[in-house]
């Protein structure tokens, strides 16, 4: 009890000093400030350690994980894109080669067809020409015979008109000789 009253006196004295100067040195308010400070610190500590800090650290970890995953995915996609481009280029080259081949084959086939048709036409033409030549020869031979006949007849008639008779054999021989000449 005695010490308590003594303490109160000291506090009163300090209080008086503080009135004149610094409220910071008013020891009467120290228990109050310290008590509420400790309450505040405990509350903040529990709010931070139970709610705020785990939550923020989880968010940060999740974000760094997401970023890592995204970078890995981007890397993978880039690789895939490269592969796709290579595949595309290969396909393009193959298609070009195939087109070239098809064009060549087609050209060769057409050429062969053309050659065959030409040969066939040539053969037909030569056959027709031979046939025609034969026909012409026949006609020519026929015509020669007719001319000979007409000439004989004409000669016979001419001879008859001149008033003489000639035997057929000599006329024919004469005509033949003339025609040859």
């Amino acid at each position: 009890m005695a010490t308590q009253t003594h303490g109160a006196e000291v506090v009163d004295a300090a209080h008086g000093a503080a009135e004149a100067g610094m409220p910071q040195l008013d020891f009467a308010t120290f228990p109050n400030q310290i008590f509420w400070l400790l309450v505040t610190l405990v509350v903040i500590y529990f709010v931070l350690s139970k709610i705020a800090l785990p939550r923020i650290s989880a968010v940060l970890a999740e974000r760094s994980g997401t970023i890592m995953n995204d970078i890995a995915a981007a890397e993978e996609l880039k690789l895939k894109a490269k592969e796709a481009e290579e595949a595309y280029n290969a396909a393009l080259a193959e298609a070009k080669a195939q087109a070239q081949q098809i064009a060549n084959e087609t050209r060769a086939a057409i050429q062969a067809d053309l050659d065959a048709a030409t040969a066939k036409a040539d053969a037909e033409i030569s056959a027709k020409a031979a046939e025609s030549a034969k026909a012409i020869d026949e006609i020519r031979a026929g015509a020669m015979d007719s001319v000979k006949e007409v000439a004989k007849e004409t000669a016979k008639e001419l001879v008859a008109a001149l008033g003489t008779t000639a035997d057929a054999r000599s006329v024919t021989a004469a005509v033949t000789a003339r025609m040859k000449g």
Partner: protein
Amino acid sequence: MATEAHGSESSLVFHPMDQFKVTPLFGDGPVHWYTITNVTLWMAIAVVGVILLLVVGSRGRAVVPSKGQSIAELTYGFVYKMLEEVTGKDAVKYFPYVMTLFIFIVFSNMLGLLPLSFTTTSHIAVTGVLAVLVFLFVTVLGFVKNGSKFLALFWVSSAPMAVRPLLAVIELISYFVRPVSHSIRLAGNMMAGHAVIKVFAGFAAIAAISPVSILAITAMYGLEILVAFIQAYVFTILTCVYLKDALHPVH
């Protein structure tokens, strides 16, 4: 009241320290340890601010953060990096303690800059308790982690044998002075800035000086915002340094 009645010249009344008075919030009785005072009010506001920033701000848990969540994450990252770089990887388990100190001091300092507010960190009782808590925590941790090897902190093995006892005494004194400088630095910075602003404000009563006074207050206010943050940073980084001494007491 009496002084004000004397006219314009004597109306210059300076009460730069009145803003630091601890008064009961309700009634006008004595300040008991449990009395709800302006200290209680502004500490409660600081707690609400901390909850708004770190709990409500991060409630979205978004991978792409909102503005509030960004600030919460920046604050987290700032203190976490500080602890990791100054104290080391093995100290991250004390992160909640360090974060509590930093966030309480930075909020109290900043809230103290609001007009008509009360700056809890301008009181040596508050900063003293904070510093003593750090001092006790670090000292106990040092002995628990390292046993008697913790005393190697005071034995400068790189110095010549002859001067080592002398250095040990100096180191021991500087170790025990730590909480004093730690707490007075913060409280002093806070108190001085606020008192200077109040003195400038007092000069504004003279019409001719008032523009200069307002300019000076504006400049001081800007400086005080800087100081409010820097002092919180300094207090925290010193805590980290002391923690490092406790965990790795090699001199």
